[in-house]
């Protein structure tokens, strides 16, 4: 019987005890496969839904479809699966940074279904973020099955996310880089290998089931020197578009929170609006891979005016879908908005300098995509690798790097935190390892407790107290009530120094008279950052810790420094 239990704890097998890297690689294969499957499932169902609903698109009432889809998805999330509202990726990052990657089992499939409903019916969102969350949740639960510790579990969650992205784009390097850059936030050798393996597994599953197709075929682009200069302009435009999208999304969130309607009504309202926009500009509906293909091939025939309008319309549509309760990610809409922006720029350039042999507009569409992704996620490497892999074209690498990097930098000036991390940082909940916030949140008051204070009773005479002072190592003496043991106050040697050498007072003074009752205290479950703030405000270097009105020990800045250093050294190692 114990055998079965040991099977569930592979970390305790002797082979793996020496080095758990082998264990992680094996689990990474499993996780990569599973999340790859999830991604393929979502992809297929989206395609199926799209085709099924395509018949109804030419009816006049087709604008209701996104509304229905969004409402259904909101209802599903809230009532059936009982998940909280919110974007998927910040939740993954939150759990990775704070709880070692623990995620609920229901997250593995809930977002898949709800985003299928939202996007399939025409909502302007992307399937990548839900798939990332599913992959991460699958990884987390497999790690839970094998009883891994926090550090290993975080790696496996990263594997799940990488497998998912690799599978959905057929782009293993982009999956790896995304997972390490955005989800984990740290480039450590121990992470990279399992994540790479998981990416490979995910991609392989996708190729087996869907064939090895590059998402977007490419043509040979001849990049001239002027084009490279022109990229800078494109970078600026994509940065502007990113900022616009971010701001609009957040304001939509804010507006919808204040609306007094139940969740599904709000989602439906957003969907309706999207549907209406979609009637005029069908490009804004759905995740947009189809129009994306057209644009890259340079076959998009609308004029400059429409294209510019389309950029703003897509931004608006995405904000409406996601801000009002629909479920999905911003990856794919970023790609569409980016390519539209690229097209606009290209048309603009043609207008201004018609004689210059600019490169084909498809190239600018690609560059716009990269610029938008890098700007929104503050992840230039992900943007670069993604574009290279989904188009299979390496010749655009020079302008690609320029656009990604400049766009990221510009966005960083205006919005210092990326879209995914913004909510977390605002609530102070982003805890990357090795940061001050992380160290303080890991340490607890219990760990800093110093228990070497001698406790005295309030009716003790000063004479007897002198004997106690002889034996103690500290300057503080907590006073307890004789009958109930409750903490009453503190005696600090500084305050009573003058009385100590006056023998006449030895029998005349009881401790209850010389103690300080107005003492600031700390509780066991206080946040350390809060404790430090109290110390700074009151100019104290140590404070008593109370639980259940009894004195437990002291907490001091000196011990904090010691433990802080230990913790920091342990957190930032290999």
């Amino acid at each position, binding site marked *: *019987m114990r055998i079965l239990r040991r099977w569930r704890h592979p970390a305790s097998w002797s082979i793996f005890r020496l080095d758990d890297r082998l264990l992680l690689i094996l689990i990474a294969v499993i996780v990569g496969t599973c999340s790859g499957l999830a991604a393929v499932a979502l992809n297929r169902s989206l395609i199926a839904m799209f085709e099924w609903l395509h018949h109804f698109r030419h009816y006049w009432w087709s604008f209701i479809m996104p509304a229905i889809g969004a409402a259904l998805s909101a209802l599903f999330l809230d009532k059936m699966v009982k998940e909280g*509202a*919110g974007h998927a990726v910040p*939740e993954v990052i939150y759990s990775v940074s704070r709880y070692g990657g*623990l*995620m*609920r089992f229901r997250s593995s499939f809930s977002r898949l279904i709800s985003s299928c409903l939202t996007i399939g019916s025409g909502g302007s969102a992307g399937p990548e973020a839900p798939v990332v969350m599913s992959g991460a949740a699958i990884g987390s639960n497999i790690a839970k099955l094998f009883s891994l510790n926090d550090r290993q579990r975080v790696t496996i969650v990263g594997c799940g996310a990488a497998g998912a992205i690799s599978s959905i784009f057929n782009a293993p390097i982009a999956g790896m880089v995304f997972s390490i850059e955005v989800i984990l936030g740290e480039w450590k050798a121990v992470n990279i290998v399992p994540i790479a393996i998981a990416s490979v597994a995910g991609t392989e599953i996708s190729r087996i089931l869907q064939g090895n197709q590059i998402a977007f075929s490419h043509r040979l682009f001849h990049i001239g020197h002027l084009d490279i200069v022109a990229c800078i302009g494109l970078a600026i435009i994509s940065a502007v578009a990113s900022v616009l999208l971010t701001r609009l999304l957040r304001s939509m969130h804010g507006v919808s929170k204040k609306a007094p309607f139940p969740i599904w009504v709000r989602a439906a309202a957003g969907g309706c609006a999207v549907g209406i926009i979609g009637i005029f500009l069908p490009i804004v509906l759905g995740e947009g891979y189809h129009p994306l293909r057209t644009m890259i091939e340079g076959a998009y025939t609308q004029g400059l005016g429409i294209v510019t309008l389309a950029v703003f319309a897509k931004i608006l549509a995405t904000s409406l879908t996601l801000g009002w309760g629909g479920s999905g990610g911003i990856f794919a809409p970023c790609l569409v908005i980016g390519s539209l922006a690229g097209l606009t720029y290209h048309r603009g350039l043609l207008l201004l300098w018609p004689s210059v042999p600019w490169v084909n507009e498809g190239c600018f569409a690609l560059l716009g995509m990269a610029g938008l992704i890098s700007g929104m996620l503050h992840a230039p490497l992900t943007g670069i690798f993604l574009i290279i892999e989904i188009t299979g074209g390496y010749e655009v690498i020079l302008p690609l790097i320029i656009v990604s990097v400049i766009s990221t930098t510009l966005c960083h000036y205006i919005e210092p935190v990326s879209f995914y991390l913004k909510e977390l940082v605002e609530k102070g909940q982003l805890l990357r390892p090795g940061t001050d916030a992380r160290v303080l949140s890991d340490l607890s008051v219990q760990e800093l407790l110093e228990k070497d204070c001698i406790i005295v009773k309030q009716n003790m005479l000063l004479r007897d107290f002198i004997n106690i002072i002889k034996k103690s190592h500290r300057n503080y003496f907590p006073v307890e009530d004789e009958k109930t043991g409750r903490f009453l106050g503190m005696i600090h040697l500084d305050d009573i120094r003058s009385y100590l050498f006056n023998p006449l007072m030895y029998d005349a003074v009881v401790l209850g008279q010389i103690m300080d009752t107005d003492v600031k205290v700390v509780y066991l*479950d206080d946040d350390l950052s809060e404790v430090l703030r109290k110390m700074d405000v009151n100019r104290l270097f140590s404070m008593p810790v109370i639980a259940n009105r009894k004195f437990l020990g002291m907490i001091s800045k000196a011990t904090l420094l010691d433990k802080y250093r230990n913790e920091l050294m342990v957190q930032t190692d290999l």
Partner: protein
Amino acid sequence: MNAQLFHIFRNTPLGRETLLQSIYFCKKVGASLIIYIPEFTKFLMYFENDVVQIDLDNSYLTSPETALKHAKELLDQGKIKARFLEPKNFTASTLPDISTNFDFMCCPRSISDLSSKIGLGYIGPRVRRIVNSARFPVLITSPVFKKWRSIAVFFGGSANAVNALKLGFRISRASEMPLSVYTHMENASRESYEEIIKNENLEEEMDHYVTEWHMFERGKFEENIYDVPHDALVVLGAYGHGLIRNIFFGSKMEKIQSIITNNLLIAGPNYGLGQK
């Protein structure tokens, strides 16, 4: 002892009974009470290797304006002070995280389902997961408040049962109530159980705390349970020697919880880790 008991307050008459029980427990054992008056129906508890989402049923959110007042009235009646927990971290905007470093937690038999499911034999799946993952024992209250005057520990000899026994000693020491141990002898002899006690170095505590050790040699377990006094706090481990540990608790445990109406204090498999 400076232990803490976590209690989720339901602002209904049923919740009042549960809170009274928690207050009594805290006073007897000397623990401090931490009350959470929920604002949302869901919250997350992150344990060492599991995250449990508690979906409270709607009765927990009844008339929030009066919840605080009712709770305070009961506290005043019981002459005990409590702290009200305000969650600081949120996984999603409607999903607060509740910390898990308590020493006890009080639950009714089911916290996710309707109040009708408080009958015997039913322990909700969430409560089971909490018992499985938590390092603290879970106090499952009887539907009506009753003061317990003694402690009854079920000892089956497994590692989990030893933990339950240690928990029983701890409660007895803190509350100074008499403690009796009940063992249903299956195929083993009396000596083998005593052997287990000796191996765990618990002989001294057995002599000190235990007033009587009832060994059931004959008869069916279900009938022998009648010997447990009606006003005892029953302490037991969640598992025995069996294989299947996830969906069901140990077979004895399931039987016990479906027959007796006393308050149950269940020690899960992780109880006792990392304690001094």
